[in-house]
């Protein structure tokens, strides 16, 4: 029986003493997933990019999903992996924001603190053998310092100048590392991220050409509206069917 104000436990986490009740179930695989999130530090701050697709297995199911969000005044959080788990994480971050608002003491969590908090949240869930199935990218800018870090579903956390999750770790990261330098400006950073997104769209079958770009700078955080990136399919390997076989050149 549910009482008013009594929140039901997470359905798959219910411990029941009744022998007829189904056994305790944990998340053992993601269902609706987002693919890569990219992040780089640049001269004026941090830039994050991701496409807007949420796949249901190999089906491109939801094509207008925001995978990068603002939290507080200084921080951006992007996620690949299970989208419902990402929404649960966002709800926790909203709670954090609300607590700061209620305290009304002028304090807000810095990007590093949000990164550290998410690390603790992800690690605690994994210790319950019920991980939040995401790779998160945290970017932010506060007190003249840019921050970029990543946390995965096991609570493994690291900071770097360039970060890519999911397929991007294989396809985009080498490009980003080759082209990145410490005083890269906003235009170059944006071009680099769009190049990477393009490569991902060409080669990652769970990616989309609808993308969102976001940045955290001294002026605060900004998340763009979704827009389509230019693609060029005139490349011989796209035009000429593979190995001379008939077909669309796909695999």
């Amino acid at each position, binding site marked *: 029986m549910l009482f008013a104000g009594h929140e039901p436990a997470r359905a798959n986490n219910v411990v029941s003493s009744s022998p007829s009740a189904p056994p305790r179930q944990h998340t053992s695989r993601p269902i609706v997933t987002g693919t890569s999130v990219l992040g780089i530090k640049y001269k004026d701050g941090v830039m994050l990019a991701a496409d807007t697709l949420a796949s249901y297995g190999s089906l491109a199911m939801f094509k207008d999903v925001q995978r990068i969000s603002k939290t507080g005044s200084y921080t951006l959080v992007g996620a690949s992996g299970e989208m419902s788990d990402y929404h649960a994480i966002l709800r926790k971050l909203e709670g954090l924001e609300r607590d700061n608002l209620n*305290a009304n*003491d*002028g*304090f807000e*969590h*810095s990007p*590093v*603190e949000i*990164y*550290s*908090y998410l690390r*603790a949240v992800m690690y605690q869930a994994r210790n319950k053998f019920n991980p939040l199935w995401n790779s998160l990218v945290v970017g932010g800018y506060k007190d003249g310092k840019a921050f970029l870090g990543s946390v995965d579903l096991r609570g493994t956390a690291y900071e770097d100048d360039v970060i890519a999750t999911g397929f991007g770790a294989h396809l985009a990261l080498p490009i980003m590392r080759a082209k990145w330098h410490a005083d890269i400006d906003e235009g170059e950073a944006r071009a680099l991220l769009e190049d990477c997104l393009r490569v991902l769209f060409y080669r990652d079958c769970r990616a989309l050409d609808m993308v969102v770009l976001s940045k955290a700078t001294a002026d605060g955080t900004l998340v763009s509206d979704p827009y389509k990136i230019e693609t060029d399919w005139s490349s011989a390997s796209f035009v000429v069917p593979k190995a001379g076989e008939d077909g669309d050149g796909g695999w």
Partner: protein
Amino acid sequence: MFRSQYDTDVTVWSPQGRLLQVEYAMEAVKQGSACLGIVGEGCVVLAALKRQPNELSGYQRKLLKIDEHMTIAVAGLNADARTLAKTMRTECLNHRYVYGAPLQGARLVLDIADKYQRCTQMYVRRPYGVGLLVACVDATGPHLYETCPSGNYNEYVAVAIGARAQSAKTYLEKHVDAFKGCGVDELCKHALKGLAGCVAGDKELDAASASLAIVSFDAAAGEAATQIIEDGDVQKYLDTVEIDAAAAQAENMAVDDAPAADAMET
């Protein structure tokens, strides 16, 4: 002997609209030995007067480090202060684990004030008989808070609590304009001068009874650091202050007549 009918537990109001148990607890704070705090430029200084319960015993410590960026001074029942300090230390440590950063003083003081408040509304408990001065330097700068058994708390630029604290308060009120922009050394001098007036009888402030805590931003470490100065180390600071306890006391004729508190061993 007359005894009030309304003071047997905290859930009973007196007809005057008072909670006598809570007021008695506030009285316990006034009987504890004095301590004071001052906020300066990017730093906070606490000073406390330690008591020796017995000629052969050591002095009761009054300054407790909570975290790198936070220290408290206590007046009242020391045993009650210990449980509060334990809670505060645990909270600070947990916050450091989760957020990788020091806890905001205001948030912790609010939690502690709520802990005090619960005891003023439940008949199975008694109020805490201790007042705290919380000094911290956090993301929003230096702060000094006072908590008391009623569950009230306030932020101050300078404050004193405990026996004969009125003397220190008078000193602080007189010099409050000087504290703004004060560095650690100047602040320590003011703190000891303020404390000198709180010494009982014809005794003088000495290295054995005085103690100092400095919470300030350590630029080298990139975060706030606490330094507690006690015993022989205080002498250096005492030497820099010409303490004329008699003059300080004469200056403040309005000193409250604090009752003898020896039995409390606070």
